[in-house]
Structure formats: C-alpha cells, structure tokens
C-alpha cells in the first residue's frame, strides 16, 4: 500500500532476513557475552598471577574483534536493510516509536566498537589497570546495547495494553516507556543475557581448544574448565526465564505453541513447537557435552569438539529466534499490525470498505479508474461474471488479483519456493480455492487460519480477483493469463460484522 512490495522468488523475503539473522544473532550475543568474558578473564589472570593466560586472551580478543566487529556489524546492518524492504510498514512503526531508543543504542554501539578495537590494540602497550578499564567499558556498553534492543524486539511480540490503547492515534510515542518495558521485556532480557554468557564460554572453548594439551596440559585444563563454567548460569536459570517468558505471551500466541504438541498438521505452523523443542533439547545437550568432552577431558578437547559444541549452540540460538518470530504470527507487531503490514484497526475495516488497491499509492490513477469502471458495469452480487478470457476485464482481474496476492501474501509466501502458493493450493479446483479465500476474507472466530494468517482485505470485487488469479496459478498450467476466467464463477461475500477482526 504505502510501500512497494519486495518480491524474492523461491526464498521469500522472510528467509532473506532469516539467513542474515542466523549469522548475526550468535555473533551479536557473542559480542555481549564475550565483552564480559575478556575483562573478567583478564582480571582473574592478573589476580592469580597467571601471565600464561595472556597470550590466549590476546588471541581470543583478536578473534573476537574480527568476528564481531566485521561479521557481526555487517550482518547487523544487513538485517536493518532487509527488514526495511521485507516489512516496511512494521519497520516504519518501530522507527516512529523508538527513534529515541535507537539513538541511545547507536551511541552505545559506537562506544562498543571503538573500545573493542582499543582493547585489542592496547595489549602490552598500556598498563594492566588501564587495559582492564577499557575492557570493562566495552563490557558495559555492549550490555547496554542489548538492554535497549531487547525492549524493541520484545515489544514486537507484546506491545502491551498501554501502547495498544494509543496505537494508530499518532500519540504512540507518549507510551514509549510502556512499550519499551513491555510484558516480555524482563524475561526476554534474562534469557538473552544467559545466552550471551553461554556463547561467551563456548567461543572461548573454540580458542582454548587450539592450545596443545600435551605441551601445556595445565594451561589448557584451567582455561577450558573456567570457560565451561560460563554455561552453568544458563543451565540453571534458563528454564525459569523460559517459563516466565511463556507465561507473559498472550494466550492466542501460546495456542500456536501448544498446537504442535499433538500434531504435525496445520502446515508449517506446528514448526513453532518443534523449534522450541530443538532449543530445549540442544541446550541440554550442549551442557552435557561440554561437561563430558571439555570439563572432564580438557587435555583432549580439540577444535573438532569445540566446533561441534558451537554448531549446536548456533542451532539452539537460531531455533529460539525462529520460534520467537513464528510465535508472533499472524502479527508482525502483536495485536496491532499483521505480518503483511496491515493494521488490525483501522486498516482492516477501512480497506474492506474502500478497497486495498484503491488505497495503494503504487497503482496508477488511470488503472484505478479503469477498474472502478469495470466493477461498476457489473450487476451487484454477481461478483465474477463469466467473461471472455481475452477481454480487457479478464486481463484486469488477473492483474488486480496478482497485485493483491503480492501485497498481502508475499510477506510469508512465494509462488514456487518457500511456503509455495502453487503447491499449497495444488489439487484444489476453483470452488475449493474460492472457499479458502472466503475463509480468509470472512475471518470468522472459528476459522483455523486465524491462528497464524492475517485476514484477506479488500472489496468483494478485489477478493474475487484473488480467486481468479490463484485459480490461474493452479489450474491452468502454462496459460496463466485469461483462461482461468472460463471456469465457473465463485461468488465471494463480504465478511459479516461478527467475523471481523477485533
């Protein structure tokens, strides 16, 4: 509507963000946890007179700087770039509400980046005391970036009643602090801090695994055992914070999580449960494997072992984020904006009345005029006339249907790749497609789609064009244009008052 639609064939826009996030999330959490790990380890080494730890810590800080300062930063910017394209309405809402928060985050971020570089380049060049201070400054600034960004990320799942009461009024910023310290803020922060600590320990194990256990058995054992202990808080407290987090999630979203316990049906949405399961199982496995492989056998703990642990940690982190993202369905901002950028209120009601494409700034005025004329020529109620497939009306209907599908479905679907419309609708005739579209349009309380899909919005005529287009995708292979209209017409009635979104 207000922004052009970004179409990524096969992969879909969500996966573009997802692929960048798979790299970014473990690195950004490592940036926070590792920032705490380094000065803490240096402090321990200095207090205990363990100068033999310093070369390892220096090597680790170089590895840390490259990994977080280059790959972490590049993927962080990449995420912003990608979400701006994938979900411009959602990103715009976040910017309008949290611009002040982001300004603060960027300040901490600049301090974090600078001190990370200074920390590495001042090894053996400044006094121990000053070097430690630089390290602590880095740790504090990196934790503060997390403290800020967590408010924005958790807001997207649970904006909270106070913010929702002013959403769409233009006064949203007046509830900034309510939105920031939203219902899932604290459990989410706790979980993320625990993940940061675990990742710090795991990345340190990667560096420590390269110490020769036969040449320097004592050094390797001491570093590995100390690094392994960084996983203990997560192992002990994660279940508590996880339970708290789930308790704070709205009942509707929790329903999505429960659905996958009994079934693998319902499309890919039972994936939320399965992703959560992977998180739980992988986290437990990591703790046990680190104990058996690293803590009990530090001398033989090699790079292969460390990479195996890291791979499981990346999987656990990735699936946690995926579960969090999917838990938000059908919203991109909980209870406010659907995943296709349409606001629950007042967009749904308004667009059903006025039309979706009518309100789009990316449709040419002359096209809008033509479509209005063609619609007016029809008898009200007879929504889909059997038209000549080659006629101007038929071509216009397919174009409108395609634009509707791009605007409202492509945030989550592709034609032939991820969540492919063609395959999901395969085997359905025009009537069955019409019924599916009708269910999405009427959006009754009893509709199974309500759990994870936004309503389809637009006028009856626009929605009928969606049926035409989808039917042409599925039932007329190789002859997309026109031929679909030869099939029997499918009347699509407007949503009843009771069936509207609340």
């Amino acid at each position, binding site marked *: 509507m207000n922004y052009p639609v970004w179409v990524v064939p096969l992969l879909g826009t969500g996966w573009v963000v997802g692929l960048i996030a798979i790299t970014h999330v473990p690195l950004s959490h490592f940036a926070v946890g590792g920032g705490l790990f380094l000065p803490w380890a240096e402090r321990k080494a200095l207090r205990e007179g363990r100068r033999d730890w310093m070369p390892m810590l220096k090597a680790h800080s170089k590895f840390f700087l490259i990994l977080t300062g280059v790959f972490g930063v590049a993927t962080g910017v990449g995420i912003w770039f990608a979400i701006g394209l994938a979900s411009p309405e959602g990103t715009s809402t976040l910017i309008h509400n949290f611009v002040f928060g982001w300004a603060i985050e960027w300040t901490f971020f600049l301090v974090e980046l600078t001190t990370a570089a200074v920390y590495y380049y001042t090894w053996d060049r400044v006094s121990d005391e000053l070097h430690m201070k630089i390290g602590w400054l880095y740790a504090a600034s990196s934790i503060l970036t997390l403290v800020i960004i967590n408010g924005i990320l958790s807001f997207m799942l649970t904006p909270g009643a106070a913010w929702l009461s002013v959403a769409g009024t233009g006064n949203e910023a007046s509830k900034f602090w309510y939105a920031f310290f939203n219902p899932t803020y604290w459990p989410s922060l706790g979980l993320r801090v625990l993940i940061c600590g675990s990742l710090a320990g795991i990345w340190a194990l990667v560096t420590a695994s390269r110490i020769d256990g036969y040449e320097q058995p004592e050094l390797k054992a001491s570093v590995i055992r100390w690094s392994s202990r960084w996983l203990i808080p997560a192992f002990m407290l994660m279940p508590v914070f996880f339970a708290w987090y789930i308790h704070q999630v709205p009942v509707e979203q929790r329903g999505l999580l429960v659905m996958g*316990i*009994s*079934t*693998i*049906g319902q499309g890919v949405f039972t994936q939320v449960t*399965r*992703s959560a*399961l*992977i998180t739980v*199982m*992988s986290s437990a*496995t990591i703790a*046990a*494997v680190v104990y*058996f*492989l690293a803590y*009990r*056998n530090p001398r*033989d703990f090699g790079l*292969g*072992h460390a990479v*195996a642990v890291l791979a*499981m940690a990346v*999987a656990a982190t990735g699936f946690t984020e995926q579960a969090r993202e999917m838990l938000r369905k059908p919203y991109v901002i909980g209870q406010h904006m659907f995943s296709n950028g349409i606001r629950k209120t007042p967009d749904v009601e308004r667009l059903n009345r006025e039309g979706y494409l009518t309100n789009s700034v990316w449709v040419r005025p002359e096209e809008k005029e033509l479509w209005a004329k063609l619609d007016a020529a029809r008898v009200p109620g007879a929504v889909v006339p059997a038209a000549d497939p080659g006629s101007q009306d038929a071509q216009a209907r397919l174009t409108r249907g395609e634009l509707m599908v791009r605007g409202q479905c492509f945030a989550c679907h592709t034609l032939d790749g991820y969540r492919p419309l063609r395959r999901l609708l395969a085997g359905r005739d025009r009537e069955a497609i019409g019924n599916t579209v009708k269910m999405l349009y009427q959006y009754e309380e009893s509709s199974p789609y309500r759990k994870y899909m936004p309503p389809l919005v637009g006028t009856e005529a626009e929605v009928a064009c969606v049926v035409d287009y989808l039917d042409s995708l599925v039932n007329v292979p190789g002859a997309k244009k026109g031929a679909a209209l030869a099939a029997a017409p499918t009347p699509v009635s407007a949503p009843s008052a009771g069936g509207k979104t609340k």
Partner: protein
Amino acid sequence: MGKSTSLERNVKRAPGVYGWIDERLDLTAITEFACAKEVPEHKHSFWYYWGGISLFLFLTQLVSGVLLLLYFRPGADSYDSVRQITYDIDFGWLIRSAHSWSANLMVLAIFIHMFSVFFMKAYRKPREFGWWSGLVLAGLTLVFGFSGYLLPMDDLAFFATKVGLEIPRTIPVVGPFLVSLIQGGDSVSDVTIQRFFALHVVVLPLIFIGVLAFHLWLVQKHGNALPPDEELKPESERRSIPFFPNFFTKDLAMWLITLNVLAVLASLYPWQLGPQAEPASPAPDGIHPEWYFMSQFQVLKVFGKLMPGALGEAAGIIVFTVAGVMWTLIPLYDKDSARAVQARRATWFGLVVLGAFIALTIWGYADI
C-alpha cells in the same frame, strides 16, 4: 588360578548407598577393569566412536519402538493407528519421527562403522569373528528397516515394499517361495503386516540382541584394533587413554551429539504419513526403496535394461552374491601387514565397493 575379585580382596568401598550395593554386586571390580582397559589415541580415533553410535541408535530404536507399541495396532488398523500417533496423540509424531530417523541413522552409522573397520584392517586376526558378527548385525539392521517400513501401510510404504520384495524374488529357485512366505500370500496385504510386525518386534530383536552380545564380547576381548600406520610405530610413540572414565565420557558426549542430531531431524523433518494404501490402484510415479537399498535396486534395473528377463535378474544376483562373498571373506585373504600385495588389493576392493555404493545410490535417485 583366576584373579581374585575386589570382594575377596576386601577393598575399601565408598560410603552410602553406592557402597552398600558395591559390597554385594562388586561394582568396584567392574570399574577397576574398565580403568585398566586402554583405548588407542591417534589421528584415526574418531572412527572408534561409530560402533558406539550404532549401539546407541539401536537403544533409541528399542525405547521409541516400545512407546510406539502402546498405540500401534497391526493388521487392518495399521494405517489408522499410525495416523492417530502422527496427528492426534501428544508427541506421538515425535516418537514416530525419532523411531524412523534413528532407523535411518542407525543404518548410516553401521555403514560408516563397517567401512572404517574395513579400511583400518580391523578384521585381521584375531578379529575375524568380530567382522562376521558385525556383518550379520548389518544384515539384520537392513531387514529391520525393510520390515518396519511397511507397518504404517500408506501408499508409499505399500508400493516401496512391493518394489523391495522384487529383489529377493530374483533369487533362483527359492526366491518366489521365500517372498510368498514373507508376505503371506501372493501379494502384500494385512497378513503381510502381521508377519512383518512379528518379525520386526519379536524375531529380529531376539536374534539381534544375541549376535550383538557376541559382537560386544569380542570387542571387549580383543580391544580396539590399531590401524596399519599406527602399528608400524614403536610402542613408546603410541598414545592411549583409559577406557574409563576418559573414553567413556567422550563416548557419552558422542551419544549426546547423536541424540541432538536425531532430535533436530525429527523436529525439523517429522515423518509424514501419506494417503492410505490402495492395493488396486496403480503405483505412484517414481516409487523406489529406501536409500540403503537403492544401489541394489539400481543394479537390478540396469541389468534388466541390458538383459531383459530372467537373464538380467540372474546377472544381478550373481554380482551381489560374488561381491557379498568377497566382502565377507576378506579376513581370510588380507591376513596381516606382512602380505603387502593382499593388503593393497583389499583396500582397493573396499574403495571400489564404497564408490560403487555411493555412485549407484546417486544414480538411482537421479534415475527415478
């Protein structure tokens, strides 16, 4: 005279419950024995874990299989009961997926174990019976997989079983009789499910556990074999670690990693259930056996194309039989490092078998 046990030696024991049990069962003797046992440590040590991983996956099969038994109803209700497990019962899908995935992973782990044993020449004297008992276990695992595949009785299971039974049917003279005996008639039916079920949950486990016990006893008796390049090293340059706790804890960690891989696969790609089998309907396009039978299937297909009719089938069977016999008897050919020519030829033979298996499997999938 045998060694005295720790009970007889009046060993000092731990206090508490463990000490009480130890005093009666002499657990200390077991730990002492395990601590004294050494496992070689070298650049090929990674391959030592695959036997343990195979064992772990077998245990997973047992546990998940027993859980599936709580709801599975063999015979005419097979399909409905599996549908119920997959789509209605809490975490039923997880147990079924874990069972199916661990079956596949077990076959893979056994293959890796078998080829690593082969290339490390661990079949040489005195480990010949270890090799043969391992081959029996591998064969039994394949039969496990085949008999379990039919049980859900969806269309894929039904037609894949029909295709799979074409392989034993080609055995001269006894083939058709054998297939008829297995499937309980002229075609795959509810009776076949009953027979496969009995085979899958009673007959095969009993035989498997017996052979497995023998195999493990041999492993324990002979210890881990050194690969030829390690054997050449002087004793002083060889490294080893105690089986307990060092190797044992690492083994446990490998089991946990395997469990995690299994959990990820079962959760990410849960085993789906297709439409109920309709024996009267034509087989869906591209029906094929599971991946571990694909190479044999492809060989039969190729020979069938080159030599249509019984001649092609006979040629295929001859190839399998000759290769199988050579594979089995390799310990009698490549006996020790002193015979370099035989050792080299055996290695080349192994590489050809491995290469053919991989190439034919890929070819089979590309040819569907």
